[in-house]
């Protein structure tokens, strides 16, 4: 029991999920430390039954052979409890598992160096599917095809598995999903008499109203690649659409891109949209001062960022009117859609996976580790991440259902949004999009230009990157 509690605390402390983006140098940012709030009795019961349900889902079928070859696992700091938990659960393999904390953005580069020296590959790596895609080409040839190694009925239990499927081969097991949803402050909405927008058109109309009646309040922020993506992928803009493995469609003149750009321009102009990423001190300050009305943010932000960073207990200064994390004020609404679209689609920020090396000498152990990491109910109890493995999603739902930060049970919204992750975000090209898009957004602000007029820069920033990777770039 004590161990479980420790583990729970560790996972909660790990907080912010598998996103790659990190705060700027500004201090009062991420590393959201959410102290374990005393769970109510009903939460405990709900979590217990969810745990039991997940445990009976039948997991970890990997056959570990007699080989005593050790494996090396590449993780980030918040994933340390996974390694510790594995060693506790399987003491017989504890001395075979070595973990290294790495900056996984360098994973594709290091893999090439290992290819040159023909040794040194890590056996298991924690990384986003977009990074797995970059090591899946003939040059890198890193991942092991899991088809057949992981039973098909187990694979089908992973939501978002499409992102791990490259050219028909399954190259990773999803860890978590990071779909964007719409968060809003129910206290402020009631006080101002606003209704929560359902479409982006509603949002634009609301922004005019806010600008007129309550200037100084914000409906969101666009200041880096991720926040840019949350609008443009939701609009279905083909800014980097991989039509096949060698062709990339970059077409920012598409009406879906123009409408997203115009919305951003409108809301930047009426000062309801801030100009930083989600973690910059000035943005956190806005939330701390209770000037945050609404925000499109990933699912892990609920427990990882809203709790502890945006709302107290937190490091920033707050005004007396700012609600605290037990005030049942945070509303969660479905991803916004455009009136003309049939359904909503949402970007994903992070949402990582575990991939196994085709060079591993101990396939069984590597597989067991990846299955444990993605499927163990005790490990996932208390995580702020939305699990990809469907039997585990009940645990997260049970936790959020009674968390006192939410105005009402948000689990249905999270579940729904998980099915709406944009197909553009499903297949990232083989190069990083976030850094060049961040440059484009920042350039727009520094030139005091509109997003609509800045859109050609998206093409000029992404095209050389695509060509260097061997893509034929088309603008259809």
């Amino acid at each position, binding site marked *: 029991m004590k161990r479980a509690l420790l583990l729970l605390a560790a996972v909660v402390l790990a907080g912010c999920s598998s996103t790659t983006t*990190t705060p*700027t*140098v500004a201090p009062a940012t991420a590393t959201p430390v959410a102290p374990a709030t005393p769970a109510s009795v009903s939460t405990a019961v709900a979590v217990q039954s969810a745990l039991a349900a997940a445990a009976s889902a039948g997991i970890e079928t990997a056959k570990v052979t007699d080989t005593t070859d050790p494996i090396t696992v590449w993780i980030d700091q918040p994933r340390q409890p996974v390694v510790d938990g594995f060693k506790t659960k399987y003491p017989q393999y504890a001395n075979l598992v070595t973990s290294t904390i790495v900056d996984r953005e360098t994973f*594709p580069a290091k893999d090439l160096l290992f290819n040159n020296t023909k040794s040194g590959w890590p056996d298991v790596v924690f990384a986003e599917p977009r990074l797995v895609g*970059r090591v899946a080409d003939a040059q890198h040839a890193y991942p092991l095809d899991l088809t057949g190694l992981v039973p098909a009925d187990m694979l089908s239990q992973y939501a978002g598995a499409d992102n791990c499927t490259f050219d028909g081969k399954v190259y990773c097991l999803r860890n978590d999903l990071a779909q964007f949803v719409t968060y809003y402050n129910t206290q402020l909405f009631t006080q101002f008499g606003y209704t929560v927008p359902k479409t982006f058109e509603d949002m634009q109309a609301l922004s005019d109203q806010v600008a007129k009646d309550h200037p100084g309040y914000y409906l969101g922020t666009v200041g880096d690649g991720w926040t840019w993506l949350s609008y443009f992928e939701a609009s279905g803009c083909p800014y980097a659409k991989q039509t096949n493995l060698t062709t990339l469609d970059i077409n920012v003149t598409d009406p879906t891109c123009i409408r997203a750009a115009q919305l951003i321009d409108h809301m930047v102009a009426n000062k309801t949209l801030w100009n930083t990423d989600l973690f910059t001190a000035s943005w956190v300050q806005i939330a701390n001062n209770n000037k945050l009305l609404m925000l499109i943010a990933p699912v892990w932000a609920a427990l990882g960022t809203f709790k502890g960073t945006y709302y107290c207990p937190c490091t920033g200064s707050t005004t007396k009117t700012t609600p605290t994390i037990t005030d049942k004020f945070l509303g969660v609404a479905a991803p916004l859609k455009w009136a003309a679209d049939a359904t909503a689609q949402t970007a994903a920020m992070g949402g990582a996976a575990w991939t196994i090396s085709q060079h591993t000498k101990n396939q069984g152990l590597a597989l067991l580790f990846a299955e444990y990491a993605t499927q163990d109910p005790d490990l996932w109890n208390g995580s702020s991440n939305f699990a990809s493995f469907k039997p585990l999603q009940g645990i997260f739902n049970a936790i959020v259902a009674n968390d006192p930060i939410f105005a009402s049970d948000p689990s249905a919204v999270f579940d729904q949004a998980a099915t709406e992750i944009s197909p553009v975000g499903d297949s990232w090209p083989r190069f990083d999009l976030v*850094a060049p898009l961040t*440059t484009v957004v*920042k350039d727009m602000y520094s030139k005091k230009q509109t997003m609509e007029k800045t859109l050609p820069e998206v093409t000029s920033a992404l095209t050389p990157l695509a060509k*260097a990777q061997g893509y034929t770039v088309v603008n259809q």
Partner: protein
Amino acid sequence: MSYLLAAPYVIFMAIFGIGPALYALLMSFSKSSAVGPQYWAAGLDNYSLAFGDSRFFQVFGNLLEFLIVSVPLGIGFVVLLALLLDMRPGRFSSALRLLYFIPGAVTGPALVLLVICILDPTISPFGPLFNFVGTMNFDGLVFPGSLPFVFTLMGFFSGAGMWIAIQHGGLQGISAEVIEAAELDGCNAWQKALYIKLPYMRPYIVYQTILIFALNVQLFVEPQLLTSTWVQANVPPQWAPNQLAYSYAFDVGNFGAAAALSLLMVAIGLVGAVVMIRLTGFFKLEA
């Protein structure tokens, strides 16, 4: 005996300088693959790919801007500070000399991070100053147009201390008689600096120019750290030629194209040095 004394330099030069350069030459004609490089398989493909990249002229244009700003400014300030230190020898000036040297003792990347913090008004000790001149955020100070100056500042912090020590050392070598003669002729401190000391410093200045030029051509850490996900500054992902080469090697996995770009930079450094030596008759002065 002379060979023995030269040996350590020659050996290290061969292992860490000439050897890798020859390997790069080989790589530039090779194709990368999952089973290691295939030598000579690429022909001139790597060169045409790298030199035909639309970022090629951009990054070299950026580099040229940076060199135009950083080389004269860097050398000018160092010489000025060295002359100033020499004007009033004493405890104060030796303390200052040590102070100038201290930033050079911090390793490059750490120093870059320090400058990044200094340039972020929200945490910088100079925050009020930035506010006063009207810039409230990091992006207002670090943007493509300001980068040559930002990198010059970073380079100056890390390298200036050492060069001040060298230049100041050179000034100590000027014979006391010459200085005395100048004083008898009625030179004031500035005239002494301009007409007596500066000409004596010439070989050291040429030497510094060659090395600073070669060093600045290799600009890498500064822009790379600024574009990292930790800082996310308003800097294109590949700003300097070295970053383009790095990107070819480690983002794309094309070591051949990276080698081609690296060789081009070796050539630029060499040509720069030869031109400087020819123009100034450096080795003749040395003798």
